[in-house]
């Protein structure tokens, strides 16, 4: 991999808030920064409610950004942007949703669902061309073109998720956010969808942000991983580095909980609990520090020193 890679997507000090009535807003994402390079698969892991989806949705501009910036190829895409940029971003950034049972319009035929983005960007000259694009997208995800005339409820979960992938692909995107795309699928078809995503990435040189809470999947599919806890990134590194040298106690705890496919080892496994009060942040606030090249971790001066020693 070349040293100077193109940054496709950059998130800078992102903050996402949800206002519940008149109370003070709930901060779902707090001061999160990371870069995603062209062609890679960037993983975002954390437990349920940690803010993964909120980040993804801010990047596709469904969630409002309360602070910070989101840059696509160096251009800010949150807040007010020009019409051309809006069009470009709508086309180039796509999302695959968590729950295929909820993410397809039940009252529309697959033809409309897959072509929806095409209608919006008018990316075709004739009805015949549009139909051809839909057929191609369906074939690309391993579905039959004649499925276009059917309704979503006639399909299984795995097929529905593939329809969701087709709807994203037809836009010719460069960057796809996959929000736990397999977590609500049957175990038997998870690999199918994962392999499909990998194949598509190679064929079309796509960049992915892969959101997950299942670390074994993350290890299999991602190049770099960021770990998020309660709306804050705690650690970010190349996947192998992170699995080999987890530094932050939260990451260690998360890794210790991964099931091992060996009963003997699994039985002997010690799960490390994570205690957020274990940090002494009363005086020294934690900072986002690059401990070793490309390995970032959240910690105060004392913690960082300890992490560096451990790596040495």
């Amino acid at each position: 991999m070349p040293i100077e890679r193109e940054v496709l997507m950059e998130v800078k000090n992102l903050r996402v808030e949800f206002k519940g009535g008149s109370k003070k807003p709930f901060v779902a994402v707090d001061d999160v920064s990371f870069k995603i390079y062209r062609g890679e698969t960037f993983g975002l892991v954390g437990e349920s409610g940690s803010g993964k989806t909120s980040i993804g949705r801010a990047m596709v501009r469904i969630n409002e950004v309360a602070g910070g910036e989101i840059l696509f190829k160096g251009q800010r895409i949150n807040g007010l942007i020009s019409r051309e940029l809006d069009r470009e971003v709508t086309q180039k950034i796509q999302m695959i949703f968590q729950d295929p049972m909820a993410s397809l319009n039940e009252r529309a035929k697959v033809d409309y669902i897959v072509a929806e983005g095409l209608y919006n960007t008018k990316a075709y000259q004739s009805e015949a061309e549009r139909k051809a694009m839909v057929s191609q997208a369906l074939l690309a995800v391993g579905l039959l073109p004649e499925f276009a005339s059917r309704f979503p409820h006639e399909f299984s979960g795995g097929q529905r998720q593939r329809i969701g992938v087709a709807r994203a692909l037809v836009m010719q995107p460069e960057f796809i956010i996959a929000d736990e795309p397999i977590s609500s699928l049957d175990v038997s078809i998870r690999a199918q969808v994962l392999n499909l995503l990998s194949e598509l990435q190679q064929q079309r040189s796509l960049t992915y942000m892969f959101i997950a809470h299942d670390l074994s999947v993350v290890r299999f599919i991602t190049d770099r991983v960021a770990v998020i806890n309660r709306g804050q990134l705690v650690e970010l590194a190349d996947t192998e580095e992170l699995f080999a040298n987890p530094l932050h106690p939260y990451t260690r705890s998360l890794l210790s909980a991964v099931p091992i496919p060996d009963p003997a080892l699994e039985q002997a496994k010690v799960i490390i609990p994570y205690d957020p009060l274990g940090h002494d942040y009363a005086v020294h606030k934690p900072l986002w520090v690059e401990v070793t090249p490309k390995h970032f971790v959240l910690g105060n001066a004392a913690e960082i020193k300890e992490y560096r020693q451990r790596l040495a």
Partner: protein
Amino acid sequence: MEEQALFVLAERDVADAERSGYSDYSYWGSTIRVFMKNYAAVFCLGLLIVLLVFIMVQPYLPAQRDPNEIHLSQETFRQLRNVRPGAEFWFGTNSIGQDLWARIWSGTRTSLGIGIAVASWNVLIGIIVGTLWGYVRKLERVLTEVYNVLDNIPSTIIMTLIAYMLRPSISTMVIAMGVTGWVPVSRFIRTQVIIIRDREYNLASRCLGTPTGRIITRNILPYLVSVIMLRFALAIPGAIASEVFLTYIGLGLPLHIPSLGNLINEGRQLMMIPVMRYQLIFPSVVVSLITISFYVMGNAFSDAADPRNHV
């Protein structure tokens, strides 16, 4: 025989396997099929169709009388008042000698017309305002304020005021019921829209840059067909009941325009005399049949229009 020859791998075509096992589903086709399985509803639908056709052709049938003609006795030249139902006057006559049969069907025409007009208006405006209120966040504040104002004025008072100020006529009736009748419908629709507006399939559409108008027509309203139909079905008898109420408080249609409202009102005044109760019973039966039929049908249709019931 060689073992190899015994065990030959069967040909398997994955595409072929996927192709099988699907039906040709159509939303409206399935809706009608499920509806047709509900015999009570089909019966009510039949009843309403028969009633509708009948009131349309009734004036042109042989031996029909003018609903406003006052019938006089051939010998005495006095009004044939309160003649009981029989061969001459099938439903009898009223207190000034008008033919009740003719008046009831004429009244049904009027009332059903008012009911359908008011229900269509209220549901249409209710849908438009309700979807904008529920989906377009910029309009949310304004429409909520408007709603609070309108909702705090009892609709009976508005209805009564308008019916009082304008000359009583069919259009006055429709206006009186339509001025605020859409308000509760819009609130209902808004609630439904809020329930589904942030479902993932709508977020997906927003990601793809689908304009709000198309999200409303393709994503939101199709999901509300069943509740809207129920609302509409109940709004028709609702408007008929309002007409009866306005007549009761003296703001109804003039007597030369028969309606179920003024027929019931006339009948009510004679309620205490047992032999004259037919004058109340006939129009009441018509109102009840209409109300019950729309209710049963509306519920059945709303169930049928819910795809979860399309097994």
